[in-house]
């Protein structure tokens, strides 16, 4: 088992003929993901690498393939439209990789996706991988191995770092989810924690947060009141200065709110194991799995 993506996941790639889209489509197919179609307006009827059918619109793509998932690699100014197109076409799980989506766009996308009964992951996220089953996005497949640790993170490469260390230590993953670093995104920590709590194949969760906002504090509250499985957490940005955006649009301390210290305190208050360094995840999780 796993969360959000598994063997039944069938994927349409939105922007399949673009630079990033084509590269990662190959990677996903290589990993074993069931990529059933792609969308590039004007290329409907063609095939990607002679195998994957291309459509002009998501409506055509979903009608022809019955796909349940899409992954988006279109430029930032078109990403909101692509997300809405996917949701309107009946896609139930939408993974938006695109970085740089205007935040105001997301204030309209979020309720639209909700009204359509779909789940959005991202935007500005590395996607999701359920090792051995399906990879939707850009997380490098070779650093993952199947297992029973759920991983959820606001970051990309920091996730890779932690997953890499878990894999090296023999701690496989049920699913690794990158929720993305934007201030408004589709899926948050709590959505993932709740799914991991329900997933019979997940025994512990590694959670990587960062400065900015209150998602980690709310996640800690959720862990305290609704989770039975052990959670280990990390907060990036302890040395970040207030008021500066640390790369991610969401990673910013506003006034005195959203600091690493307050998030770590929330973790501790909720009984979440706190990793001081990325490498600490290995021992903390191992201890909790015994």
């Amino acid at each position, binding site marked *: 088992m796993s969360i959000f993506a598994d063997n039944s996941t069938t994927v349409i790639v939105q922007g399949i003929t673009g630079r990033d889209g084509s590269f990662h489509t190959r990677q996903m197919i290589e990993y074993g993901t069931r990529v059933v179609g792609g969308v590039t307006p004007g290329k409907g009827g063609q095939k990607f690498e002679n195998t994957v059918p291309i459509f002009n619109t998501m409506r055509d793509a979903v009608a022809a393939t019955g796909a349940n998932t899409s992954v988006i690699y279109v430029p930032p100014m078109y990403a909101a439209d692509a997300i809405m197109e996917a949701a309107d076409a009946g896609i139930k799980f939408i993974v938006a990789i695109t970085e740089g989506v205007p935040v105001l766009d997301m204030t309209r996308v979020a309720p639209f996706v909700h009204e359509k009964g779909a789940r959005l992951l991202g935007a500005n996220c590395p996607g999701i991988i359920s090792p051995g089953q399906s990879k939707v996005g850009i997380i490098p497949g070779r650093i993952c191995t199947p297992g029973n640790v759920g991983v959820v993170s606001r970051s990309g490469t920091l996730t890779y770092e932690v997953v890499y260390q878990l894999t090296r230590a023999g701690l496989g993953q049920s699913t690794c989810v990158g929720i993305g670093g934007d201030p408004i995104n589709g899926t948050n920590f709590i959505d993932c924690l709740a799914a991991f709590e329900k997933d019979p194949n997940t025994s512990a969760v590694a959670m990587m947060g960062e400065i900015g906002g209150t998602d980690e504090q709310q996640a800690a509250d959720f862990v305290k009141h609704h989770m039975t499985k052990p959670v280990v957490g990390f907060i990036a940005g302890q040395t970040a*200065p207030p008021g500066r955006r640390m*790369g991610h*649009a969401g990673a910013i301390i506003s006034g005195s709110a959203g600091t690493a210290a307050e998030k770590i305190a929330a973790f501790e208050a909720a009984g979440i194991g706190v990793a001081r360094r990325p490498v600490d995840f290995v021992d903390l999780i191992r201890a909790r799995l015994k």
Partner: protein
Amino acid sequence: MNIHEYQAKEILRAQGVPIPPGEVATTPEQAEAIAKKFGTTVVVKAQVHAGGRGKAGGVKLARTPAEARDIAGKILGMQIKGLTVLRVLVTPAEEIASEAYVGVILDRASKAPVFMVSPAGGIDIEEVAAKTPEKIRRLRVDTRYGLQTYQAMELGFFLYADLKQARAAASIMQKLYAAFMASGASLAEINPLVVTPKGEVVALDAKMVIDDNELDRRPAIAALRDESAEAPSEVEARNASLTFIKLDGNVGCVVNGAGLAMATMDLVKYYGGDPANFLDIGGSSNPDKVVAALRIITADQNVKAILFNIFGGITRTDDVANGIVTATRANPLKVPIVIRLTGTNEDIAVKILKENGFSASADMDEAVKQAVALAKGGKAA
């Protein structure tokens, strides 16, 4: 992106917000001429991307044109929070019966723009929020519907009991919201919004912050960027598509990915060091970006050691290795460098580095420890 008060005022004025006139001067003589034209007591205000201008002495009254010239002479060139004042706004002084605060921010928890208003204006709103939260009213705006008249009136009545003033404030808030949306802002505030002795409601100060992600589709807003008001290293980084933030430490960091970059800085601190910067080379690696990154970092005299931490996913580690070789060949390093890289094309990268006299580690912790030690004048382990 921050814009100046005078730019924010132009945007709000275009939407119809009542704002007293004002002109920008870059020399004391210009300030004098503007004051003469207004023919009344003026305020001379430093235009700089920093809060607390008043406390720093960047906002002063001038009763005569000569005084305006003298004051402008003092404010121009002044440093406020590390930024040099290059422009002042000269605007007629208004008599004030009461001061209120009106702002709208893009609130992540609400997933929406949220208005905050307070009849206690003119001071720092965070202070009001902390000390007298009952004096603040918040209102979430659903962008699918926009700010409705009844919502603006609720806020207007929270500020003023008088119907005419409540209506004027409501109208200003609708215009502020329109400006916020049309500019792709993440913050727009008027502080203070004042009532004059005649009972008119006018905006005396304005601040707007634009979402960087909006700039590609708003060229007129993007053109408001004032690079002279930013740190040169950050301007150079942005032009090279890097995210760079200067800090006070001595370990220069080059990392791919914002989360890993923060975690790397944190680990430097954890091992007793001090990061000199945040620097994210982003997802797509090309050697030019690495060259630019090294140029920016080595320009900082405080940097005593350089740390690369690259986890190759989309980023190809051989691109990074090539960038390091190219950059150091052109400008040999004067400080030690520690390179950690793993992931995509790691073998090729290590080979390139070795052939050019660099060593590389695959372990983040070890690399950080080494860099900290080197920055302290120790040796690489």
